[in-house]
């Protein structure tokens, strides 16, 4: 077997193992949370008998291990359970929410990833000169401001003062792609500003690190121009660290958008999660947690695999 296939298979297996471990953590974590669903559904005035009946109905009188395995068994068959609060199938309500979150994350990534890598390359090209300092200054400022703040500032200026784009990012099935994009334009801007600095700084650092190498000097002594050297000789050797940070940020775009979704009333996973945490709806929280974990692990797995594939020593063994 090609050593690369073996490595990739190993990574995949590790990813699955990690996901399994995450599922245990999520289950244990939600089990030891204080509070009681039955109590919150029935209210303060509920009788002890009514509470006990509801708990039995919800399966909460079973031992934890039994509940975990029945939950895991369901998850493996695509059954995420039913929400305690409204009795709806979680998989169904999550499906469209997840779709919306991915839609927002996708467009934010489409803009942020190429932009940050380009800015990173530009910063390397003009290292320690004003373009570098300007890029670093601006991106570090935007990452330092809380995202809800950027959100409100952009709503005020872009939407209210200049009248471009909608300030509320509510989308639904019946909207066309153009309408949807118009609705999410401002949240996409916010997310881009939030993730730009991290990726751009990492690209800059990774390429500068490679620029110290002797083969960059070789390229310089061939008479190649700076941009060509960065593009042809430095970038291919900096892919692994760059992909790593890109994937971390993509994961953030999916998992960490809770605040932005709430600010813009966007019907995504984050808002769904926040709603149900406040209602102590454990199955929904578990399902969301598991999906977030899967996204994180999956994207990091991709980063790992890309790093392996980007390494010529592994791709072309002796």
């Amino acid at each position, binding site marked *: 077997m090609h050593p690369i296939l073996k490595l990739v298979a190993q990574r995949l297996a590790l990813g699955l193992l990690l996901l399994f471990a995450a599922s245990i953590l999520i289950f244990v974590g939600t089990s030891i949370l204080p509070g009681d669903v039955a109590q919150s559904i029935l209210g303060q005035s509920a009788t002890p008998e009514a509470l006990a009946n509801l708990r039995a109905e919800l399966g909460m009188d079973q031992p934890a291990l039994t509940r975990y395995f029945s939950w895991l068994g369901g998850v493996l068959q695509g059954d995420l359970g039913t929400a305690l609060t409204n009795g709806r199938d979680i998989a169904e309500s999550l499906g469209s929410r997840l779709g919306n979150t991915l839609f927002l994350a996708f467009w934010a990534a489409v803009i942020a990833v190429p932009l940050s890598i380009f800015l990173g390359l530009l910063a390397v090209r003009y290292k320690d000169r004003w373009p570098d300092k300007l890029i670093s200054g601006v991106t570090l400022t935007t990452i330092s401001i809380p995202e809800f703040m950027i959100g409100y500032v952009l709503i005020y200026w872009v939407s209210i003062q200049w009248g471009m784009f909608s300030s509320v990012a509510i989308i639904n099935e019946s909207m066309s792609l153009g309408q949807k994009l118009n609705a999410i334009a401002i949240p996409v801007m916010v997310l881009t500003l939030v993730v730009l600095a991290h990726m751009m700084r990492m690209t800059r650092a990774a390429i500068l690190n490679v620029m110290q190498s002797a083969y960059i000097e070789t390229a310089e002594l061939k*008479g190649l*121009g700076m941009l060509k050297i960065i593009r042809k000789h430095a970038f291919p050797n900096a892919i692994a660290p760059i992909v790593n940070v890109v994937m971390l940020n993509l994961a953030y775009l999916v998992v960490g958008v809770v605040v932005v979704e709430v600010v813009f009333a966007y019907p995504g996973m984050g808002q769904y999660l926040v709603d149900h945490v406040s209602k102590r709806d454990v199955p929904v929280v578990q399902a969301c947690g598991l999906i977030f974990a899967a996204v994180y692990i999956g994207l990091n797995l991709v980063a790992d695999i890309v790093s392996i594939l980007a390494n010529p020593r592994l791709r072309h063994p002796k």
Partner: protein
Amino acid sequence: MTDPLLKVRGLKIGATIYPPGEKPRDIEIVHGVDFDLAPGKVLGLIGESGAGKSTIGLASMAYGRGGVEITGGSVEVNGRDILQSGLRDVRRLRGAEVTYVSQSAAASFNPAKQIMEQVTEAAIFQNKFSRKDAEARAVELFAKLGLPDPDTIGNRYPHQVSGGQLQRCMTALALCPEPDLVVFDEPTTALDVTTQIDVLAAIKEAIRDTGVAALYITHDLAVVAQVSDHIMVLQQGAMVEYGTTDQIINDPQEDYTKALVSVRSITHEEKKPTATPVLKVENITARYSGTNFDVLKNINVELHPGQTLAVVGESGSGKSTLARVITGLLPPSQGTITFDGRPLTPDLATRPLEDLRELQMIYQMADTAMNPRQTVGTIIGRPLEFYFGLRGAEKQKRIQELLDEIELGEGFQDRYPAELSGGQKQRVCIARALAAKPKMIICDEVTSALDPLVADGILKLLLELQKIEDVAYLFITHDLATVRAIADSIAVMYQGSVVRYGPKSQVLSPPFDDYTDLLLSSVPEMKLGWLEDVLAHRKMESAGN
């Protein structure tokens, strides 16, 4: 006389240095150097590290490495002063008229690109050849440089060929655009002697066949004597002597040149083995975990008190692994080690303090073997505290004694490693090893990173200390001149086995086994025509067989 291809006048080069604890300041590292190089001729630039030879070589491409800047003078290539040209013109010169071969081809090739693409890049980029012609020329050069599979080797990645092969590829890279001048910057220094001789011959032949001129930079006078027409000796950024190769080698005028020519003047009387060895290595076989071959195969050697056993071999022959086994860093899969009459436990972690104290080690890179944030006093004082519990005035006294022994005076106690020269750093490492009052010291290539004259000083010091302290050395090296200078007995290693072992006089006298013969005959000698003689001799022998 034809117009010179390269005409350097009053070349001054400066750099900014950052001494620890002080403000950065500008210093001059090359102080006005003049020379000419005619088309098709080879000029050897020779000197120790810090002499400015690489800096001058790169200046002929108007390039300053790191913070180095050319501050004055002129460098004319083909009649144009390239120091006055704009960056655009300089870039047109680099990789077209003047090309560069670096010391470490392994680092100078981009690991992510195929060799062919890198070898032809400059020729294509500079519009010297079409891609097809450049590739054809590269294949031709691969063949001329004696690379295996010249038609397909270009499709490989740098990590897929050996160090010596990559160095030849680098030469092909430099020759591919048909330059007028190639700067060879220590092209064989990083190679084993047996590889060096082949690469050297390939370079020499390629220079002759293509009629290119060359600046050949090296610290090894014996090597440069084989390839150059003229030699310029440099010391601390200034020219010491310039002459034909013949004159520099056979009739040096300046004291400094004479010292370079006669380096390795140490004579060492071989000592007879004693009754009981201090170290006895028996049937040692070892492998690294996760691999399925033995890096050491059935090694048997002895080292006697107050004597030196030199372990010689190429990189990968297992000599450093042997040191790792003896120190307990790599427990062997078979065999025993007896130290001072008692068995050593295989694993370092289980050895008593006394064993650790009596067996010390000195490393190749003194730089990385010392904590840069500790003063010399702290570094040497640590084993005194650790093994003998010395404190206060007693410790200070002992530190001073040790510093005297390594010929570093007062005032060195409070210095940091960064404030020391390479030779001084290695001396501090020697003092640290001696502080433990060991019975035996493993010296792993301790002079390899040093300039010849400095290395000589270190070897003399080691021999002197051996007499005083009666300490035994296990001396690991790839340098046969060093072995001649200090060894009492020698073990020649090849591919994990000891192929020849015995007292120095015996090991270095014929009849030789094939490998030892190859190794000994590959060591460059300081005489003209040595390279041709050896190659002719080898050709005759292989024809005879």
